[in-house]
């Protein structure tokens, strides 16, 4: 069953789920790499949590107007509005030095999630149908994915990759040295806005498949894995996208093969298995490579007359 799900031969719906989630992973990994380098991953987490009440609220509004509450465009719109509201709230709280950035994010994250859970419990008691699926927005339930959702995920991946490809150099310079970028005349605020918009798009599209609690994991963990494996920017971004897509593919297949496995949680565990492997075995930054280097140095100091080579840069070496 797992093999069939992995190879897309476990039926049409399972194939849609696996392909759609993998396409989403591609976008999450690529955007996540830039968010990581810009130091903005916590914003993604806060936005995802803040999106939850938007989803439940949209469900209620849809009921009120007699629309199909399972229609995902309505829920996506609610999620997008609430997530954007969350980001604006963070900025409002953090400007003027009222709260530090991380505190502002923690406030928005917990208030958003709390509001979402309370609304969810209210909706759960209503004498209507269809609300059971809402729980999937917390930990992810890709099995509920429709063909339309998969297409949306694919379209997001395509748009995100195109935009990142086009803005590759300005965004890279923004992440590395924003002040220098500004002196060259780059629109630093506009670029940050574009990066935020991409992050929000990933969060909102990923909410259904991967879940509010897990979506940030699929943005950060593959990016961190890629950074362990590569010290070059372009390979790191490509690898991050591929690691995330592979994790999403395998995780979605696993959860399709075993009913009841939450998709987002499974995907994040697969991604973290890759991370652990890179942490151990990455060519230069891995723990094994570091241990081997230490052993080599130790052997040299033990050799009579041998002098241990100082590390690159010697005593003047700066913080890493």
């Amino acid at each position, binding site marked *: 069953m797992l093999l069939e799900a992995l190879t897309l031969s476990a039926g049409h719906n399972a194939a849609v789920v696996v392909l759609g989630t993998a396409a989403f992973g591609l976008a999450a990994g690529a955007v996540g790499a830039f968010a990581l*380098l810009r130091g903005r991953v916590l914003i993604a987490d806060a936005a995802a949590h803040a999106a939850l009440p938007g989803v439940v609220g949209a469900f209620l509004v849809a009921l009120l107007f007699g629309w199909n509450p399972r229609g995902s465009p309505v829920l996506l719109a609610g999620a997008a509005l609430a997530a954007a509201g969350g980001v604006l709230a963070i900025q409002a709280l953090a400007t*003027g*030095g009222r709260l530090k950035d991380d505190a502002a994010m923690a406030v928005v994250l917990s208030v958003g999630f709390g509001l979402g859970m309370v609304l969810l419990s209210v909706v759960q008691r209503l004498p209507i149908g269809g609300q059971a699926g809402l729980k999937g927005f917390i930990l992810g339930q890709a099995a509920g994915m429709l063909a339309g959702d998969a297409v949306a995920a694919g379209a997001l991946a395509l748009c995100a990759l195109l935009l990142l490809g*086009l803005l590759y*150099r*300005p965004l890279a*310079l923004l*992440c*590395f*040295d924003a*002040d*220098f970028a*500004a*002196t*060259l*005349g*780059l629109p630093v605020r506009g670029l940050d806005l574009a990066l935020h918009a991409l992050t929000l798009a990933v969060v909102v599209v990923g909410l259904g498949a991967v879940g509010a609690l897990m979506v940030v994991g699929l943005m950060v963990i593959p990016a961190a894995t890629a*950074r362990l494996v*590569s*010290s*070059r*920017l372009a390979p*790191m971004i490509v690898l991050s996208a591929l690691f995330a897509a592979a994790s999403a593919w395998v995780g979605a297949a696993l959860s399709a093969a075993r009913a009841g496995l939450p998709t987002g949680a499974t995907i994040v565990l697969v991604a973290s298995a890759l991370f652990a492997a890179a942490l151990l075995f990455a060519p230069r930054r891995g723990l094994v490579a570091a241990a081997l280097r230490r052993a080599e140095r130790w052997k040299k100091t033990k050799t009579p007359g041998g002098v241990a080579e100082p590390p*690159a*840069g*010697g005593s*003047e*070496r*700066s*913080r*890493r």
Partner: protein
Amino acid sequence: MRGLAPQPLEPALAVRDLTVAYGGEPVLRAVTWQVPAGALAAVIGPNGAGKSTLLKAVLGLVPAVSGEVRVFGSPFAAVRRRVAYLPQRASVDWDFPLTALQVAAQGRYRSVGWFRPLPARERQRALAALAEVGLADLAHRHIGALSGGQQQRVLLARALALEADLLLMDEPFAGVDAASEAAILAVLKRLAGLGRTVIAVHHDLSTAPGTFSEVLLLNGRVIAAGPMATTFTAEAIAKTYGAPVPLGLVAA
């Protein structure tokens, strides 16, 4: 004979009555300073004197409350192509996945355009900038594997690659070893020889007179400004730091 008199050159930088505040608290008060074109100018003062803020205000990175900044007689935005900025080394993430050459090449993007690959000729120019600071051999090394002084020189190479007429440097000598200091000093002298203008935030009182031709002594406001030889007096320095500072000592 009027026609034969040399036209006075437009000053490279002219700041008039510049006031900058962070959150209501003024950091710079009514700063007025002119730097003639072709000068090597040092901005000197204690920590928190507003030295970095002055550079950032000139570059439009922090807004001014009031006052006027002219670069070669024009607003900065109109002549930004003639200006290069070298930020403080600590303001950059040195774990970022880039090589020394890739950082130096950032100084070529503006001329090349942001959306096409770097032509081989431009890559050569970035490499030449690295060679100027003595780092040609380390071009393909990850920036995190460089020493502090080498990292400082990579930022200098990027500023050189911009081929600017005015270079604003925030502590180019901070935390560098003797080899890097000599390399950076040589570049400054060469820039002066080419008629370029350099304005650098500087901390080392003992090396300042031998390196720079102009000086601004700053502590929130202008304490003294002008040619190094007549301005950099023990009295003015003591006034800047609020206490007598022996010239032989390095101010941290």
